[in-house]
């Protein structure tokens, strides 16, 4: 297995990484890896994803093989080896959302953004992910854009949410509805 972790050509700036990693020494008497996951979380917090060069540095500092780090990173859903969109759309697939139509929510979000679950728009604006449960079942079906909840959704409401989100962000206006209809499958 080739361990090619990074897909991005742009090398991230590693200055300051060493200081950041200083806080994650393992407690004597516990394995070297015992603070690996918190360290990875801190690195991801800094970069938004986990660049290979940063992981290599982490491994070197704490004498953890890169293969072990790769194993851990790919096991957990919240570690990303690729850059992510500026905004994350989290569509809840919990049971309460499921019985209230979550599959239509995902389908509509995918259609609006023109990407599938797990993908990032080419302009790095949005990433779609599905989560097992956001724990806000009373809002079902629900999605989050970054830290904000949008609940009791139907297709029409989702179109409106993205429409207004685009206005507010003054970012590239999100094209909704008719313009994305070349994509088949709803």
């Amino acid at each position, binding site marked *: 297995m080739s361990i090619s972790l990074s897909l991005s050509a742009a090398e991230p700036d590693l200055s300051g990484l060493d200081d950041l990693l200083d806080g994650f020494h393992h407690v004597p008497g516990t394995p070297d890896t015992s603070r690996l*996951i918190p360290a990875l979380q801190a690195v991801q917090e800094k970069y938004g994803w986990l660049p290979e060069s940063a992981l290599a540095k982490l491994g070197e500092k704490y004498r953890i093989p890169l293969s072990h780090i790769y194993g851990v990173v790919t096991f957990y859903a919240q570690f990303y080896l690729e850059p992510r969109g500026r905004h994350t759309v989290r569509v809840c697939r919990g049971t*309460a959302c499921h*019985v209230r139509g979550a599959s239509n929510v995902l389908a*509509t979000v995918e259609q609006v953004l023109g990407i599938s679950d797990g993908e990032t728009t080419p302009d790095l604006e949005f990433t779609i992910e599905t*989560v097992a*449960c956001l724990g806000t*079942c009373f809002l079902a079906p629900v999605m989050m854009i970054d830290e904000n909840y949008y609940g009791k959704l*139907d297709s029409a409401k989702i179109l409106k949410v993205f429409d207004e989100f685009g206005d507010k962000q003054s970012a590239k206006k999100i094209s909704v509805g008719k313009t994305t*209809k070349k994509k088949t499958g709803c």
Partner: protein
Amino acid sequence: MKKINTNEELHALQVKLAKKHDPEKARVLICMTGCKAMGADNLLAAFKKEMKKAGLKDKIEIVETGCHGCCAGAPVVAIEPAGIIYHSVSPDSVPEIIEETVKKGKPVDKLGIETSEGEKFHHRNEIPFYKQQKKIVLRNCGKIDPTNWEHYLSRDGYAALAKVLSEMKPENVIDEVLKSGLRGRGGAGFPTGKKWQFARNAKGSPKYVICNADEGDPGAFMDRSILEGDPHSVIEGMIIGGYAIGADKGFVYVRAEYPIAVRHAYNALSQARELGLLGDNILGSGFNFDIEVREGAGAFVCGEETALIASIEGKRGMPRPRPPFPAVRGLFGKPTNINNVETWANVPIIIHKGSDWYSAIGTETSKGTKIFALAGKVNNTGLVEVPMGTTIRQIVFDIGAGVPEGAEFKAVQIGGPSGGCLPAEYLDLPVDYESVTKAGAIMGSGGLIVMDDTTCMVDLARYFLEFVQDESCGKCTPCRVGTKRMLEILENITRGKGQEGDVEMLEELAVSIKDASLCGLGQTAPNPVLTTLRYFRDEYEAHVHDKRCPAGTCRALISYTIDAELCKGCGACLKACPQDAISGEKKKPHVIDRDKCVKCGICKNTCKFDAISVK
């Protein structure tokens, strides 16, 4: 904040704080956890502004609390001491609430909570949702500011810890927990006292305690609410547990998807440390104990105890065979005791009020209360705490106010992906560990999802299988491959490609997977399929033999139609359809082109005249 050195100091402080935060004082309680999703921030701002205007800013405290329970009524506000509760409060109503309720203690009639019979209630002890519950674990949720340690102390907080450290030997603590009859609230219902005993008797040092807050079951949010709304109760429980088994270190393993819970846990821990309730020589007893938070990284299987331990150790979160159980060989190879959030939160009150008091609540085999997360097709979604042995009917209909109008109760899914679906004939089942297991489901962590006649049970089984298949860690073959095969069969059935023998194959696979899987995830993965087969076999047969989805859910087996008599030709659906599958002249009935239609349902949501139906 001053360090508390002795029991006497703690007691004096509690008395002082109980006076300062007297429950008879006027207070406005606003949920700032779950209700944030429905505009609690704006409501809080409105209250602050209007209170200032009314000249009450320094006289009446506005408390930012955890969950009141009725999430369907978000944002929820309670006004004390009158005990008046308002649901779905708009900032526009704030001046009136201040004028009538805050100043005069009178309810605002029009803001009352209406039942389906048209009765209106204002007080907590009258509103059906609240009055039928028994809040033991959630006693502080919605009543205190979870970020303010004074509030917790003012309500007997850490009194149980003081009692344990001054009066009880570790063995007595374990005895008391054993006698209380407390069983693990995370799912399997193992007696908590016994688990502690195993860890206490195990050889090895140091020992660890872990709080499992990796609440992964979709549809369960009680652990989240406890950590958000009353984090100190969990910490107090853990310190007591640590003392009982002889541990000096604890971990809280919490889902990162719960940002408020994570924040409140960190905050409460640093307060407890400053107060000297964590750290060295707690309350002068010579007992040392500290707790570290570990955030999960998104793996459902880490709710399984051996996988959770692997995750804290910095490994892939994969379970390992037991025995040895964690009590003997757990975290870093040392004796470890793991309980979930709700279990830990039960401990302080058991010690404080005594095992006799506690064991008087509940049924013969299941003591105390259980918190259920009520969600799905039910009016009052939210958190419900009731004594063990309460029937499903009481929970869903009396407290939950039943299914929304126009729908019919079909089943309740209990216990998450490891649980099962119980049909209407089980409505009068008293819910305790044994009865639920006998009916084919499990108590699990307490998710209760209500389903109506538009929920397809085959699709629901497919949904759960998809979930466990996705979350299977891949270590053992029965779970990794077996659930995949089951999912494929279910996908075929829901797509109208079911064949003779599919249902029998599902049953055969289910038994093998249950028998042969390594951990609880695999062993219980077939449960949703088995219970839906047991109670709703006709739905499977309709899909396989008639290629029909009776609930109108499975996309490949349904179609959308416009009723020409009801359609006004307004053109709303035509404009909304992303596929251009709808055509028709203005003011004349429209039609859907079945070849173009992708069955997304946007048209049905858009139609104001209910002219579009799905079959």
